[in-house]
């Protein structure tokens, strides 16, 4: 456009970004996150001799996969302009249910499905309260966070439910084709999420709602049903998270997962999906999860005391996003973001 010749100018088409270019732009939004990620990796490679080993990188990717799974569902929710605070408690309740069913002697598959159903049910409850009772998502999911935590404690009677189940273990420790199971799950989920967000009606409608809910209603989109579906998905993903954590720890407990909701939201937001809604960056969420887990892993490898770990995590988060903002050179855009 800048090279436009003077003089007669026909009614020109504005906004020349095409969809493929739009995708490049999306990738570029995620790419600045790749820059801090590479920086962090470089520093860690130099500072420790163990960072760049297959075993360690696999650790990082497994941990990132486990938080990316709920993160991907949360990406949809945030793209819709809302978020779900109840995930951490859902982790506790699903884990508790799955482990209790295992202890009661039910087959692993049944127990896992039961846990996932419970997670989806929490999501359904969120969706119904939000759409049918008109409660703000923040309060609705915060209330569910509190209630579901209470329910998991009541359900477990405040005690650990210990299991020893090989099949359950397979979900985190299994290696189909030599790749750790969580990575397999996360990659599958990411492909599905990318397809859904960018290539299906459902995904576009989710972004449409996040972009302008009034217009979505006026355009006749089934807004309530979409919102409920997204909350069910987030609940389900919380269930997956709960099952994976229980698989790792071989126990269920009313206390697990406290504060996880913020982790899930954080990977999405640092991945570049705006809390204002309207667009979703699946790649960003993956990179966000990897960045967070790399930082955590690195600080552990460096044996950083807790107090300094906090400070470093905080500063690195801020720095990563500052780099992103500067690279984006969009002053007001960043400011208007929540």
């Amino acid at each position: 456009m800048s090279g436009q010749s003077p003089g007669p100018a026909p009614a020109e088409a504005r906004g020349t970004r095409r969809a493929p270019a739009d995708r490049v732009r999306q990738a570029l939004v995620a790419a600045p996150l790749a820059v801090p990620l590479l920086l962090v990796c470089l520093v860690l490679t130099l500072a420790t001799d163990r960072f760049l080993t297959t075993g360690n990188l696999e650790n990082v990717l497994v941990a990132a996969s486990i938080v990316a799974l709920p993160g991907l569902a949360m990406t949809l929710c945030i793209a819709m302009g809302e978020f779900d605070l109840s995930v951490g408690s859902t982790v506790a309740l699903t884990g508790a249910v799955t482990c209790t069913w295992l202890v009661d002697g039910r087959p692993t598959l049944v127990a896992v499905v039961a846990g996932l159903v419970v997670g989806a049910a929490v999501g359904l409850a969120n969706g119904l309260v939000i759409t049918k009772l008109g409660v703000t998502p923040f309060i609705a999911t915060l209330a569910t966070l509190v209630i579901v935590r209470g329910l998991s404690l009541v359900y477990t009677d405040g005690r650990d439910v210990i299991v020893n189940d090989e099949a359950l273990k397979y979900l985190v420790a299994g290696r189909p084709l030599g790749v750790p199971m969580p990575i397999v799950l996360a990659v599958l989920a990411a492909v599905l999420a990318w397809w859904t967000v960018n290539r299906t009606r459902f995904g576009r409608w989710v972004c449409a709602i996040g972009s302008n809910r009034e217009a979505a209603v006026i355009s006749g989109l089934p807004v309530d049903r979409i919102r409920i579906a997204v909350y069910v998905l987030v609940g389900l993903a919380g269930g997956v998270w709960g099952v994976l954590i229980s698989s790792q720890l071989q126990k269920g407990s009313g206390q697990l997962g406290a504060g996880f909701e913020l982790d899930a939201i954080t990977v999405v937001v640092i991945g570049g999906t705006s809390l204002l809604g309207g667009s979703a960056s699946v790649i960003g969420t993956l990179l966000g999860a990897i960045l967070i887990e790399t930082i955590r892993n690195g600080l552990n490898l460096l044996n950083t005391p807790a107090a300094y770990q906090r400070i470093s995590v905080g500063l690195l988060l801020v720095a990563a996003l500052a780099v992103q903002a500067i690279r984006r050179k969009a002053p007001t855009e960043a400011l208007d973001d929540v």
Partner: protein
Amino acid sequence: ESEEPATSGADDGEALTVGFSVYDMQFEFFQEMERGTREAAEEKGWEFVLHDQRSDENEMVTGAQALLDQNIDVLIISPVNPEALGPIVNKAQEMGIPVVVDDIGGGGTPYDAIVISDNEDGGVQAAEYMAAQIEANGVTSRKVVSITCEPSAFYAARRNEGFRTAIEAAGYEVVTELSGNSRAEDAYDIMNDALARDPDVAGVFACNDPMAVAAGNAIIDAGMDPVNDIVTVGLNGDPEALTAIESGGLSATVAQDPAGMGALTVDLAEQLANGETPDFDNEAEREVYQEVTLVTSENLADFTN
């Protein structure tokens, strides 16, 4: 220095009301402590009022002070933050109500008595067992890992101090010391990272059992054995630790006796209410010790009843 306790309705044999402010009933440890306290009080025919601090220091101060207003004769408190005992003890003293602290710490306040596990000794026992077991396993590495509670848990830090001193004396090096915030989820990740850093660690100590069992699971997931390859030791004696020792997921734990501690606080409360001076293990700090015991597969049966 501690004041003459009030004797309101505390004549010998008469029914007292005891208020117990507990750290957090979410944790099995404190559920046991509550059970021990309540059952001992009921046995004496006392009235028992419970307050749950829910791990919140604001709730601790508010709730415990409110408890003092409910016509209790003695306050037993297991403080989420011992340093916040000041305003509570201060008010209790003004009202002439004796305060018995259960576990955690007294925060330098003029409480009347404190029952406390010997945390440092717990760490020492863990270290000594670990060193012996590593030898027995025939492992030559001298690297060990220590997983601590949250940085604010000063009482629990003594366990790691005791552990560190004793294990270093035995010729080992603590290569990783990180906080798992008392949470199993965090400890699992920390153990993973510690193994990536030093694949040849010979032992790991976690200052509570949920973290120790989680570390054991991480070791198993890394294809190793938390008893024969890497000696894994916890502290508390929680049911999950006992189960894990039985199934080979944990080498040992150092058991506290929360129910016993609860019962002990009730005895102390009775003596204080009657104006007697209890028999302290440490006169100056008004401490009564509760023993800690090492639990291994050998003596496991004594603890699982």
